[in-house]
């Protein structure tokens, strides 16, 4: 058990590259938040009206779904470190399920807004709303593709332990996607 704990500690930092990626990506999202705040200060009424048309239930449900998915992802990484393939497979599948659920809710939300006549060029609020949440959705789709690839590791139990680093990196990426959504949700849906 002690040896396992040491191994887990040694592997805990993943690799530098993924941290560089996360840092760079978060800088870009920081720019989005700055632009959103700037546009909001220039067009306060337009943003208040736009925010009132958003469905907090959809946004809130997606927040909960992504938080749960992050929990599953953490469990999957833990299982991968212990080379517990069955548990790993179980939790990766649950994470993918949550990601797909997020996309379904997002698609319903977008189609609602489009049906109401709002689109990416309607005004500054909808430009930021569609562009920023859209890019976040792209991150979720990329994450799901990577998770789908990572799910294939279960097939070769002998070589499973060689994929631990990749799984840890995937986990870090997924947590970043989750964190960014929480901030996006707060900024776009909640902050008056």
């Amino acid at each position: 058990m002690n040896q396992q704990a040491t191994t887990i500690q040694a592997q805990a930092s993943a690799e530098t590259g993924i941290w560089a990626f996360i840092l760079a990506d978060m800088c870009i999202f920081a720019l989005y938040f700055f632009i959103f705040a700037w546009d909001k200060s220039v067009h306060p009424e337009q943003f208040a009206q736009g925010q009132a048309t958003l469905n907090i239930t959809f946004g809130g449900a997606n927040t909960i779904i992504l938080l749960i998915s992050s929990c599953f992802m953490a469990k999957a990484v833990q299982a991968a470190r212990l080379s517990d393939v069955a548990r790993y497979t179980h939790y990766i599948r649950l994470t993918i399920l949550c990601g797909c659920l997020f996309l379904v809710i997002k698609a319903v939300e977008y189609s609602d807004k489009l049906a109401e006549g709002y689109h990416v060029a309607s005004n500054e609020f909808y430009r930021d709303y569609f562009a920023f949440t859209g890019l976040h959705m792209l991150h979720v789709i990329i994450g799901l593709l990577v998770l789908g690839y990572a799910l294939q590791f279960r097939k070769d139990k002998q070589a499973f332990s060689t994929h631990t680093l990749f799984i840890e990196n995937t986990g870090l990426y997924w947590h970043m996607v989750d964190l960014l959504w929480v901030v996006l949700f707060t900024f776009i849906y909640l902050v008056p």
Partner: protein
Amino acid sequence: MTNRKPLIIVAAVSMVMTTLLYVGGMFVIAGFLPPPPPELGQAELAAFYYNNHTSIITGLTMALVGTGFMLPLCIIGSVFLAESEEGFPFFAVMQGLCAVVTVLFTAFPNFIWLAAAFRIDRPPEMIALLHDLGWIMWATPSWGFAFQLICVGVCGLRDKRPQPFIPRWMSYLALWVAIGMAYTPLVPFYTVSGPFAWNGLFSFWIAFFSPIFWIILVSFLAIGNIVKNNHQKVAA
């Protein structure tokens, strides 16, 4: 393994020529970069082409030649990718094909703007039409270059050799730059300046300069690798 030194020299020459001709032509001589705001009126655009007729044609022609130098650079990149791949070099081939698309879509707008400047007595609305067509074509289809970066990133992460050509963190950075280009398809939605218009923060400044920054970084690392390998050979 391919002898890397001549390839690196050709790649370095290509990069220098692309930079001098394209950046010099577009930024300095033609005055096309940074891009003119999309909200410029037809009369203002016609005046821009009329007043800068000679410098526009000179700068755009220089830039057009500069785009041709991008190809050797990209194809040499494919050679290095192929070295790192096992079996059929799928990502090397895909990167090479996407490079052709990138070069074509970088060159085509120059032809269109050259056509706008060719007969300056055209009605302003026709000049404006050609100008818009050129900018939409220039700013929107960045997916070719994004796929090139994805190929490089994926190959770099799959490269299990003790001394991979690209450090892993550069591969992650390549993927990040590729994702950063995701906004360019929004360009046709905006006829006024903003972060997603063709002269905007995300569609131009980040989508144009982050790949350049990445290419410069990769070039320095590649040259450093060559120098290090040569020193090791001499020492041996």
